[in-house]
C-alpha cells in the first residue's frame, strides 16, 4: 500500500491545476475553445485508480466548479457524475482500448457532460449560443491523448520509484 499516497497527491494536484486552468483568463477570441480540464483529469484518474477516485470526488469537484463559474449549485456536479460513471462502470474494458478508441469514448463522455450542462441551462432559462457547448468537446478530444500520455508517464515513474526504494 506504499504507492498510494504519492499517487493521491499527484491526482489532487492535477485536479486543482485543472480547476485553475478552468478560470485562468485567456484572450477573448480563444476563450470559447477552453477544454473541460476537470472532466479530462477526473476521467483519467478514474481510469487509473478507481479505488481512490470515484463519484464522490466528481461530485465535490463539480460543486467547486459551480462555485468558481457562478453556475447553479449542482449543475457541474451532476454533469461530472454522469460523465465519470460510465468510466467506472466499463473501466476494465476501457483500459484495453487502443488510443483512438479511447479518445472516441472520451469525446462521447464530453458530449454527455456538455449536453447535461446545456440541458440544465435550457431548463433554467440561461442557455448560451451552441458554440459554447460544442467547442469544448472538440478541443477536449484533441488534448485528451496528451493528458493521457502525461498522466501515464507520471504514474509509471512513480511506480518505478516505489520499486527502487
Amino acid at each position: 500500500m506504499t504507492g498510494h499516497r504519492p499517487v493521491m497527491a499527484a491526482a489532487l494536484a492535477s485536479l486543482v491545476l485543472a480547476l485553475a486552468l478552468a478560470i485562468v483568463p485567456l484572450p477573448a477570441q480563444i476563450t470559447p475553445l477552453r477544454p473541460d480540464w476537470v472532466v479530462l483529469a477526473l476521467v483519467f484518474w478514474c481510469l487509473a485508480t478507481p479505488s481512490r477516485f470515484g463519484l464522490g470526488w466528481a461530485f465535490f469537484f463539480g460543486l467547486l466548479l459551480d462555485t468558481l463559474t457562478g453556475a447553479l449549485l449542482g449543475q457541474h456536479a451532476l454533469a461530472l457524475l454522469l460523465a465519470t460513471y460510465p468510466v467506472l462502470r466499463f473501466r476494465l474494458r476501457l483500459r484495453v482500448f487502443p488510443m483512438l478508441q479511447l479518445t472516441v469514448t472520451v469525446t462521447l463522455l464530453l458530449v454527455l457532460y456538455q449536453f447535461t450542462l446545456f440541458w440544465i441551462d435550457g431548463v433554467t432559462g440561461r442557455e448560451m449560443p451552441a458554440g459554447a457547448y460544442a467547442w469544448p468537446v472538440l478541443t477536449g478530444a484533441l488534448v485528451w491523448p496528451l493528458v493521457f500520455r502525461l498522466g501515464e508517464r507520471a504514474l509509471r515513474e512513480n511506480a518505478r520509484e516505489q520499486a527502487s526504494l
Partner: protein
Amino acid sequence: MSRSREATGPARGLAPGPKLFLLALLAAGLMIVDQRQQHLETIRGALSVLLFPLQAVVNLPFATWHWASDATASREMLMEELNRLREDRLDLQVQVQRLAALEAENARLRAMMGASRQAADRVLVAELLAVDLDPFRHRFTVNKGTRHGVYVGQALLDANGVLGQVVRVQPLTSEAIMISDADHALPVIVNRNGLRTIAMGTGDTERLSLPFLPNSADIEEGDLLVSSGLGGTFPSGYPVATVRRVERRPGEAFAEISAEPAAALLRAREVLLVWTSRVEDDADP
C-alpha cells in the same frame, strides 16, 4: 498503470450504481433549491472561501505583471504622469468649485419642493480578479465581499460610467454582472430631455439596446443616457451609454436604437462599489 491492487474495485461501501443515484439526486436537489431560494449561500460562501487561494494564485501572474510594470517605470515617465495628474486635478478642482455651489442650490430647491434628496454616495475601490467565468456571460469577480459590506444589487462604476451590479456576495469576493450581459436591464433617462427608458444588454460589450422607444421618441445619435435611479438599484445621474444608432422603421411599433456603454467594460481593472442612501426630508433638521 496495471497494478493488481486496483482491480479490487471501489473500496467505499456503496456500489457505483446506487451511489450515482444518490449523488445525482443530491445534485438535483441542490439545483432546485438554488434556483428557487437563497438558502444555499452559506454552502457557496464556504466553498468560495476554500477556493479563494486558487483565485488569488491564478490572479497572481497578472497582478505581478502590473506591479512590475509600475515598479520599473522610468523617472521621466513618472514625472510625465505626475504632471498630467496635477493638471487633471486642477481641472477637476475648478469643476468641483462650481459643483459645490450647484449642489447647495439643488438641495435648497429640493427642500422647497419637499422632495427627498440624495445623500453623498459612499464609494469603495475594488479590484477585479483576473479570473474568467463563463465566456458568454458578462460576469466578473471582484476582491471585496460581505466582510467589506458589499450587498446584492449594489452598483459598480468605473471612472467613466456605470459598469454593472453585484449579483452574489461571498465573504471575500463577490460576483457581478455587467450592463452588457444579455440578462441585464437598467433604467436610464436621456440626459438632454429627461426621456425615460430601459437599456438592455445585448451580450456584446460594445452595444446596449433600447427596445422600448416608439418611432416618434425624441432621441438622436450622440445623446447621453444617464442612470435614472428609478429601479432603486443604481444611483441616479451616472453616465451609462451614448446613443450610436437610431433606426426608425415605419412599419414597426418601436424604433431600433443602440448605444455604446460609457464605462470601459473590458478594460476596467479597478471598479467603484457605491453605497447610496436617500435622506428623507423629515429626517432633516
